[in-house]
Structure formats: structure tokens, C-alpha cells
């Protein structure tokens, strides 16, 4: 019998790969190693589960029966400890050595926690897994004051979720404005104003220097120049690929495990997909990319020759009672650009299209995301915008052009 295909990891990349593989190969055994006690679930929902009861049935991407039907063997609570790419084996933490015919690294990423004093105190969290959410929920049930470190997408979702549960929340952001990677300054200020209305406090240009505790538990945080009381702290300061597993193997690594367009690593029969994978120098760390890369890896592992179909990264966020969308290049490199924009402050609506060489390259839509797909298509197709429309800041004229 053929040695099994082994998939390390249990996120969307792993499941998409297993599914795509099975569609093309019914026979070869497939084993998924999941370090968590759960089947793959919708990780994107985690922040919305703060203070909520967990319903696994709703969270699971596929029910346990699905794996059985497809003859995919899932080993829960089982981590890969080390790899031997010469002998094609994985050593798991339950002491088993598994020989693989093909291996997929889909073991994702972990939260990055800045190295500040006190970051190991009780009451300091990051949110990456269901168990993280369980721990936070248990700890904060009788607490009031929370600090969220990081004003990015996850940080704002966490802050919003906590505020909705009646917590007093402050967001500490190191940049001059929140969501600084995903939106422009105008949209950021509009968003912050809505957050403040919802009772959230923002500290921009905030530099966290220490987390202070008593009896091992968080009591306050020290920023440059001030101390703020805090009963719990949630870090949402980015993620790093879990490349520790491939140390001491010949697999080439940059920020992540480097892959080609077939999701192959530098070592034969070893593939990588999702947050662990670095493709063309980029580790995106977002769901749609992981899904597509996982699928591509699965197809190629089953003997197909399929290129990774690059996903154009976009951001979508629903917080503080507003929807916002951004896509492409927001022209933050300091070089000149044109723009077409429309601001309706009263109704909290704002749209801006960034233009270079008469072509749309990026956009932020705040409060009204209806034209999102039309605009994203225009960016992809390098639509030429007539000079007159740019000169007159004719937003409606531009929309009329897009079909």
C-alpha cells in the first residue's frame, strides 16, 4: 500500500488541501495532524465569540462525519514534533513515527507578542484558537477594564466584541492612527470617532513599555508617560509563521516556508500552504489565500499540475456599526498620486479611489461598500480613467463607467 499523505495542521489550508486531494485520489490514505482538540473551524469568527457560549456545530467547517465519509483520518490533540525529510517521516508528540508519501505543511502561524516586561502575567492573552477564546471568556467574566494592544483588523474586532459585552476597552496603537495599513487617514478618523461613540478609548502613538501586575496578575499597563489601569490585556500585534518545525531540515525558509506556484517547497514531496507558506516573498496570513493555496497544494499532491491562482488581498471589516472595505495600493509610499473621493461626514460615508497613471490602483470604501466589486474589477483590469473625471473629482461619473 502507498504510504499516506500527511497534512500537518488543521486550518482552512489543511482542509482545503485534503478535500482537493480526495477529489482526485480516492485511494491513498490521508492523515491530518491537529494540535488542537477540535476539527477545523472558522477561525475568522473567534473575535466575535468573546463573552459568548461556544457552539462547535456552527463553528466546524465540516462535521466529523465528513472526514469519515471521505476517508480522511484526523488525529486530534496530536502535534508534529520533528521532520526527517531524508527518510520521509514525521515524528508526532504521541511518540509515533509516520512515513509519508507526500507531506503538506499547513501548520499556520502564531501570534507575535512584543517582548515587553510582564507579558507573561496572568490576564495577558492573544486570540488565535478556540481554547484562547475559552480562556479569555473565563478570565474576563468578572472583570471590567481591558486593554487591546494593536489597532489592526483583529484588534478592532476584539475591542468591539468586548465593548458589546459591557467591558471598558482601550485600544493602544503604535501608529498615529488605527488601521493604518488598511485605510487612509480620513477613514481611520471616521472609524475612530464611531468607536469612541461606542465607548471605546483609543491611544494612538502609544508605546507600551511594561505590563504591571500584583500577585502574578495584571493590574495596569505602563505607556510612555502614563499608567492605565487594566485587569486584562489582549495582544493583537500580528502573527509569525510557525517555521520552528522545519528547523534542522533542508527545507528553505524566509519569513515562511518558501514555495513555488505549485506550493512545492525546496524538498521533493513536501508542500506548504496557508500562513506557514511564503510565496513570491509574501506571507499574507489571510483566510482566502490559505484556502486557495491549500486547494492548489492538494491538487498538485494528487498529481495534477495546477498553478496557484493569486488572490488579490482585500480587507473587509464590520465594527462600530459600520462596514468598510479596502483593496489594492493606497499610495502610502509618499510618491504623487491622484484620487477621486467623496465624503459625507453627516452619514459617516466616505469613498476614495487612488489613481496612478490614470489607472485605479486602490480604494477605501467606508459606510457604503456597494461598489466594492466593481472597483476591485476596475483595478484588476487596469481601467483607463478619462482625465476629465479625475480633474473634476467626479465620483459618480467614475461609478457610471464601471460595469
Amino acid at each position: 500500500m502507498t504510504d499516506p499523505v500527511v497534512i500537518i495542521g488543521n486550518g482552512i489550508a489543511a482542509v482545503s488541501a485534503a478535500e482537493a486531494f480526495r477529489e482526485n485520489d480516492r485511494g491513498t490514505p490521508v492523515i491530518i495532524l491537529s494540535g488542537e482538540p477540535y476539527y477545523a473551524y472558522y477561525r475568522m469568527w473567534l473575535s466575535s465569540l468573546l463573552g459568548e457560549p461556544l457552539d462547535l456545530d456552527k463553528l466546524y467547517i465540516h462535521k466529523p462525519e465528513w472526514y469519515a465519509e471521505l476517508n480522511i483520518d484526523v488525529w486530534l490533540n496530536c502535534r508534529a514534533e520533528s521532520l526527517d525529510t531524508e527518510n520521509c517521516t514525521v515524528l508526532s508528540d504521541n511518540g509515533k513515527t509516520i512515513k509519508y508519501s507526500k507531506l503538506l505543511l499547513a501548520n499556520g502561524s502564531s501570534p507575535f507578542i512584543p517582548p515587553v516586561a510582564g507579558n507573561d502575567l496572568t490576564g495577558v492573552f492573544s486570540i488565535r484558537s478556540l481554547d484562547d477564546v475559552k480562556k479569555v471568556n473565563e478570565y474576563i467574566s468578572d472583570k471590567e477594564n481591558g486593554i487591546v494592544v494593536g489597532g489592526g483588523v483583529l484588534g478592532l474586532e476584539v475591542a468591539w466584541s468586548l465593548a458589546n459585552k459591557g467591558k471598558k476597552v482601550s485600544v493602544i496603537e503604535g501608529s498615529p492612527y488605527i488601521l493604518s495599513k488598511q485605510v487612509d487617514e480620513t477613514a481611520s478618523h471616521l472609524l475612530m470617532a464611531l468607536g469612541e461613540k461606542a465607548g471605546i478609548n483609543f491611544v494612538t502613538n502609544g508605546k507600551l513599555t511594561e505590563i504591571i501586575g500584583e500577585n502574578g496578575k495584571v493590574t495596569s499597563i505602563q505607556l510612555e508617560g502614563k499608567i492605565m489601569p487594566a485587569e486584562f490585556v489582549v495582544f493583537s500585534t500580528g502573527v509569525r509563521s510557525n517555521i520552528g518545525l522545519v528547523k534542522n531540515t533542508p527545507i528553505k525558509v524566509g519569513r515562511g516556508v518558501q514555495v513555488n506556484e505549485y506550493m512545492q517547497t525546496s524538498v521533493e514531496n513536501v508542500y506548504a500552504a496557508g500562513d506557514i507558506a511564503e510565496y513570491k516573498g509574501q506571507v499574507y496570513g489571510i483566510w482566502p489565500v490559505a484556502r486557495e493555496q491549500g486547494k492548489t497544494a492538494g491538487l498538485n499532491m494528487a498529481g495534477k499540475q495546477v498553478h496557484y491562482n493569486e488572490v488579490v488581498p482585500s480587507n473587509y471589516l464590520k465594527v462600530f456599526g459600520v462596514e468598510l472595505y479596502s483593496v489594492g495600493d493606497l499610495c502610502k509610499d509618499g510618491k504623487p498620486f491622484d484620487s477621486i473621493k467623496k465624503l459625507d461626514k453627516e452619514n459617516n460615508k466616505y469613498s476614495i479611489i487612488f489613481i496612478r497613471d490614470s489607472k485605479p490602483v486602490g480604494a477605501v470604501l467606508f459606510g457604503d461598500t456597494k461598489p466594492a466589486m466593481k472597483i476591485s474589477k476596475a483595478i484588476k483590469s487596469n481601467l483607463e480613467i478619462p482625465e476629465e473625471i479625475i480633474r473634476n473629482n467626479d465620483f459618480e461619473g467614475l461609478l457610471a463607467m464601471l460595469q
Partner: protein
Amino acid sequence: MQKWVCSVCGYVYDPEVGDPENGIAPGTAFEDIPEDWVCPECGAGKDMFEEA
């Protein structure tokens, strides 16, 4: 019938399957889904879908 894909998470709406758990019967064309329906995987609005 035309399939639609969520640009936020990659979920594919297949009219043949519908989204019965959220009240969309199999056979419902994407255009006929109520405007307040959201992506069952990520919660994004209907505006975030593009033709697959």
C-alpha cells in the same frame, strides 16, 4: 446557474445547493437572495460577492 464567490473568504455560493441553514432554498439564484443575507462563512455582506 451562475456561482458567486465571496471576495473576503472564498466561500462559493452555488445556487443548486443554496444556503438552507440560513433560509435560502436550493435553486435560488444569487440575484434573488435577500439583500440582508450575509456570507455564511465570514459574515460579509452580499456586496462582497463576485461572479465565480
